[in-house]
Each structure stands twice: as structure tokens, then as C-alpha cells.
């Protein structure tokens, strides 16, 4: 029993460090998509992932990354499962993950919005809330596009230092 627990901790430690394919400065643990790692009595390691977006093309790579790392660490039987519920939210990005994002010039997300019933919030000014520039820290920033190079990011620019930057949008 003790060894199974120790083993689960070791397996979890290995799976946690797999980098995210699209934002490789983050690990899967930082991103909050690694939900659970357990070791079954027969020694099978079970890692549970949750996708970020329905169309996220990185899911297969995440799964392969976890399986490959665990196999390389000597686990012969590895199973990667997916859970869809509850759906992932940017609130699950850890403080450490937020720090790394900012360090790499990507503004971390604010608190996720509540559920959507009711009218469409129609504010046509581009900026709804303050996003600090990850380069110079100024709060004089504006959204240039809510959609960016990956599903999870929006494009912003800083009016103070004039640099464009990416922003992980709340979901």
C-alpha cells in the first residue's frame, strides 16, 4: 500500500511536468488540465486529462506526451483517460502558471465569467477590464482582437510601451 502511494506520487510528479504543446512554458499541471494520476493495484498508471476547448488540436499531443513520459520512466502500463465534466476553466491555471505566462510576455487571464444566460453584454469599447501589460506593467492597454493564434488567446497592445502582446482570455 505504501509503495502504491509512493508510486502514485512519483507518477503524478512525472505527468505534471509534461509541457503544454501550444504554450510550452507551462506544464499540464500549470494549465490545470491534469486532473488526476493514480496507480491501480495491477500497476497500471491512470492519468486523467480534460480538454481546454472542444476543438483544441493539442489534446492528442498532451495525451501522447503523458504516455511517453510515463513509459520512459519505467511504467509499463499507462492509460490516459479524458474527462469532459466539469469543463475546464482558466480559473484552474495555477498561480505558478500565471507567473510563467507573464514572464513569457503573455498576460494571464482574469476571473472566468459567470454563466451566460440573459442579454448579450454590448459594450463596443474594446476594453472591458484592465489587463496589465506583461512587458512594462502599464494598465493603459487595449484589445486588438479577441481571437489569436490559438483558441485560448486574444491579441492586445500596450499604449504605454507600444508593444503588442497576447492575453489568455477567461473562459
Amino acid at each position: 500500500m505504501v509503495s502504491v502511494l509512493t508510486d502514485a506520487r512519483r507518477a503524478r510528479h512525472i505527468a505534471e511536468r509534461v509541457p503544454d504543446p501550444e504554450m510550452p512554458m507551462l506544464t499540464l499541471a500549470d494549465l490545470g488540465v491534469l486532473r488526476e494520476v493514480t496507480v491501480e493495484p495491477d500497476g497500471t498508471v491512470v492519468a486523467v486529462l480534460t480538454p481546454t476547448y472542444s476543438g483544441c488540436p493539442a489534446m492528442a499531443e498532451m495525451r501522447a506526451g503523458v504516455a511517453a513520459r510515463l513509459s520512459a520512466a519505467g511504467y509499463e502500463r499507462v492509460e490516459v483517460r479524458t474527462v469532459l465534466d466539469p469543463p475546464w476553466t482558466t480559473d484552474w491555471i495555477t498561480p505558478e502558471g500565471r507567473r510563467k505566462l507573464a514572464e513569457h510576455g503573455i498576460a494571464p487571464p482574469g476571473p472566468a465569467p459567470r454563466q451566460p444566460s440573459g442579454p448579450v453584454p454590448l459594450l463596443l469599447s474594446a476594453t472591458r477590464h484592465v489587463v496589465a501589460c506583461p512587458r512594462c506593467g502599464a494598465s493603459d492597454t487595449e484589445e486588438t482582437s479577441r481571437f489569436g493564434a490559438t483558441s485560448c488567446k486574444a491579441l492586445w497592445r500596450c499604449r504605454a510601451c507600444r508593444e503588442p502582446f497576447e492575453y489568455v482570455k477567461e473562459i
Partner: protein
Amino acid sequence: MSDDHVYLTLAEGHEDDTRWAYGTGFEDPLYGVDTAVPDGVDREGLAALCLALGDDALVSAQRLAEWTTRAPELEEEVALANIGLDLLGQARLLYARCGQVDGTGRSEDVYAYFRAPDDFRNVALAELPNGDFAFTIARLLILASWRLAHFERLTASPDPVLAAIAAKGVKELTYHRQYAAEWVVRLGDGTEESRRRMRAGLDGLVPYLGELFDAHDAKTDVLAVLRQVTEAADLPLPEVPSCQGGLGRDGAHTEHLAPLLAELQSVARAHPGATW
């Protein structure tokens, strides 16, 4: 495992390179999900629902993808492609679920690439050609609001997989709707020309709205959004027809679906079973 980069990690230890494209069997969108169907669930009804919602999403995604390299600005191209990608993701999950529930075990590829137009169950509105940007935006507002209304209800589906697909989709559809609503206001309350086009875009949808409000109870939600957004845009509310019989949901499509599918399916049909 000498390198920390995930792409290099992936490249190790695989004898063939058939892992990246359609037809490789590499990626099942519901891989590793508990896919048991609870007792008492009407499997036929559930499969039909997954198929219809999957077809709406696939056909919409294909139309949105057609804007790539053609949108008025780069930002809008990226936005429309991103929205299409979300819908494609929803379609894949729904097709995979359909294949499990209808007992055929068909894969997502079979549903997307190897069915004839008559077998598709998307609403006709989704398959209409893109028209101009205003028409695309008007359609996106309606379809996102309509789908959001359904998905909110489906989060309480007795099928836990469909409920989970819906819960994830709700978040995505909320910002699709937001994007479209902001453009309707911007164009409707813009120049004389943008206003004329936005109005024409909304009016052009009207003949196809009856089908949306036939089978399901989403009309109130969609009309509330439409009323709110057209008011903010200072546009007249288009006259929404009363419910009428299904078109696309019964497999009766406009002449526009077959060419769309011909393009979407051409590679898969020219090289059935191919991997690369």
C-alpha cells in the same frame, strides 16, 4: 527522453509517420471518456440529436473556414476561423457520441466524409453561401444564439456525455454570440452602406428561420437576443416567421449543400482509407 519539448517527445519511438492527418485512427475525440449509455435513455433519439447538432456544427465550420484569406481584415479572418474550429471540435465530439449510441460504432470520419447530402440533418440556414460579411455575421448571431439556447438546456441531458459536450460548448457559443452581436451593432449603427448591408443580411435569413423554431423551444431566447441587438444597432427587428415544417432536419436541403460537401469530402473520397 532527452528533450523537454513536447514535439520532439512525440517524434520519438514511432516507426511510422501516420499519426498526424485524417484517417490515421490516432485521435478519437472521446478517447478515454466513460461512454456508457445510462439505462432508460432513448438511444435512437439521442443519436439523432447528436447527429443533427453535429451536422449543424460541421457545415457551419466549413462555411466559416471559407472566409480564410477572404475576410475584410486579418483579425476577422482569425476570429471566424477560430469560431469554426470550436464548432468543428463540437462536431467531432457529437459524431463520436452518435456512433457509440446508434450502435454502429461508426467513427467521426464516416459521418463527415462518407454520407450523401440527403443523409445530413443540419438546418438549411447553416448551408447557405456566405454572402457578404454582414450576412455571415447575421447568420452567426442567429445560429450561435439558437445553439446556445439548446446547449444550455442540454447541460441537463440524461446522457452525461452529451451534457458534458454541451457544458463545454456553452462557454464557446457565448463568445461566438458576443462577437457576432458586436459586429451587428457596429455595422448597423455605422455608415449608410454598412447599415444597408447589415439590414439586408438580417432580412436574408428570414425565409430560413421557421425551421429553427419548429422542433425545439428556443424561440423565446433567440428572439430576446435578436430584439436586444437590433435595438442597440438601431435596426428594425426582422419579421420572424411562425414555425414551419423541417427542411434540413428532414434531409431536404437547398442546392447549396451538395457542392459544400463535395469540397469537404473530396480528399477523403479520392483516397479512401489513406493515411499520410
